[in-house]
């Protein structure tokens, strides 16, 4: 700018940051632009809030018929779900307990499978084999974060279901909670692993060295020092994996069978995991072609979306609490 060349003056510019006073017009224009830009970038950030408010408002508005006429108690406790019966008979049933149970069951199974593997990968990358881990495993795992979830579902559909058909009771096609849990587990391992690895990296080197200097074996250091120290971030990773699995629709829809009956675990035992079932997301998805012609069923599906939204919000709060725990333990 013009002011900067003012005779190579050694004296600092006058207070009031006015080095460019030589061209007042230009200076004023750039200040107006500067102020305008401030509003524009603020608008970009504020747009996020607008969207969140819009999402919540629209979902609640469209779910309202279910809340007001079916009632939350019926919605959350009944298993009688015939949302599309209204099209032909005039009366539908909107008890959503089965898909809600299904969602939590599938996600629990997915986490049970995924978490040990994810943590193993994280420790492998950061501690036991950092060179191979950094060069090959981490980039590979990151690629898998990017593979579309529907592709995982399709692969499960063409390879996993025929496999599970062999161990399923006769007459079943292998779809169900087990298939969905496995597909989701494969899908979320990369997510949990990368976040956990970041957590392990951020453990101060002195902790590691101190533990080794005290004579601990590598495994003792990992189990008693590193994993506890990185716990908040590992929990964040697990919760984000949980949220991803909970919200996944099409991958699950391809392998779970979409039958709205809670499997009888007491009677069927492990075989119940091979019985076609459903989740909230799958139940929402199967109404996609009747959105316009079936207002009651659509409202009930919006209500399921509200439940999903609520679960996701709780997950975010948990992540934040975990992060706070980290700050607390550092202090």
């Amino acid at each position, binding site marked *: 700018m013009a002011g900067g060349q003012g005779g190579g003056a050694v004296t600092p510019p006058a207070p009031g940051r006015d080095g460019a006073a030589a061209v007042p017009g230009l200076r004023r224009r750039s200040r107006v632009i500067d102020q305008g830009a401030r509003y524009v970038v603020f608008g970009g950030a504020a747009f996020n*809030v607008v*969207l969140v408010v819009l999402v919540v408002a629209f979902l609640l508005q469209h779910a309202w018929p279910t809340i007001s006429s079916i009632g939350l108690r019926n919605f959350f406790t009944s298993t009688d779900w015939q949302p599309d019966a209204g099209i032909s008979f005039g009366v539908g049933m909107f008890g959503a307990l089965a898909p809600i149970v299904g969602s939590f069951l599938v996600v629990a199974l997915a986490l049970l499978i995924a978490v040990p593997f994810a943590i*193993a990968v994280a420790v492998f990358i950061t501690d036991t084999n950092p060179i191979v881990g950094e060069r090959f495993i981490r980039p590979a795992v990151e690629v898998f974060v990017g593979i579309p979830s*529907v*592709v995982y579902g399709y692969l499960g559909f063409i390879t996993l279901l025929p496999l599970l058909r062999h161990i399923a009771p006769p007459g079943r096609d292998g779809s169900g909670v087990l298939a969905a849990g496995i597909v989701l587990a*494969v899908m979320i391992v990369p997510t949990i692993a990368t976040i956990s690895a970041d957590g392990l990296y951020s453990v101060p080197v002195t902790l590691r060295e101190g533990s080794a200097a005290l004579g601990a074996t*590598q495994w003792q250091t990992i189990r008693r020092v590193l994993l506890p120290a990185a716990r908040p971030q590992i929990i964040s990773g697990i919760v984000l994996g949980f949220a991803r699995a909970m919200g996944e629709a099409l991958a699950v*829809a391809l392998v779970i069978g979409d039958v709205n009956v809670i499997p009888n675990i007491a009677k069927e035992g492990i075989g119940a995991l091979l019985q076609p079932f459903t989740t909230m997301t799958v139940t929402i998805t199967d109404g996609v072609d009747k959105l316009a012609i079936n207002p009651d069923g659509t409202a009930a599906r919006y209500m399921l*979306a509200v439940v999903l939204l609520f679960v996701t919000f709780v997950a975010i709060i948990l992540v934040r609490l975990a992060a706070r725990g980290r700050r607390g333990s550092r202090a």
Partner: protein
Amino acid sequence: MNRRLRRQNTIAIAVLRGMVGLLVVLLVWIVVQLVTSGWSELTRGGFYTKVPNIGGPGGGVGPQLYNTVYVLILSMLFALPIGLAGGIFFAEYAGTGRLTNLLRRASETLATLPSIVVGLFGYALFVQATHSHPSRLAAALSLTVINLPYVVRISEDALRALPPALREGSLALGATRWQTVSRVLLPAALPALITGAIIAAGRVFGEAAAILFTGSNFSLTAHANYTLNPLDAGDTLAVNLYVFRIQAEPNVVTDARAYADGVAALLVMAVLVFNVGARLLGRAAVRRLQRTA
């Protein structure tokens, strides 16, 4: 005691490595399986240009591919400027007050919204409230909701990764904050921004649930072929993979399986290309900047 510990150590670490090995084998198998079973489609000339011919041989996924790219570009046109502005705000303007906190939380919340929830929202706002029908525009706007928080984060990270001396030097020379951002920081962050934008585009490429509700015509055979109208509906590749299962059981309908395998392989290849491309382009941009500097 000591020997016991050492043995425990050896066993635990062997188990850990074994688990990682198992997972790596699984991941490699996934890619190999998908790419090999779709390879014959990927290498067949008409696959990328012809319209599907379900139940018979020789069709392609031309309209779906076109739709995917169309919706991708349209949604990036919305998400990039807004997200970049948001990222600039968080990196360069935001304080540490309550307002900033609220904005950050909103962005995080948006990032964790399930795709299908965004799909229902998009249907309510972009289709029902506007008294229109599922369309490419509605799909692109819904994808913008999904992608915006990522673009915000990518932009913020790219700016934050710059050495503080750049910023301070520019301000010390008397530049306004916006001059600093637009003439010093953004050009310097360009490689990281390009890389980030490509990775964001890759996410959109494979997105399905939101489009199913807002832009799909839910059919394997009805297409708005290669039109430019944003109000036309049309399936994308990822949506198609789901619709296959519903409309044409891949294990029953002749050739449907081959199509679906081809689509899955194409999606995986696209992710690999996006990933590698992002890294290469980012690196090339760094080199060019260094030459001109």
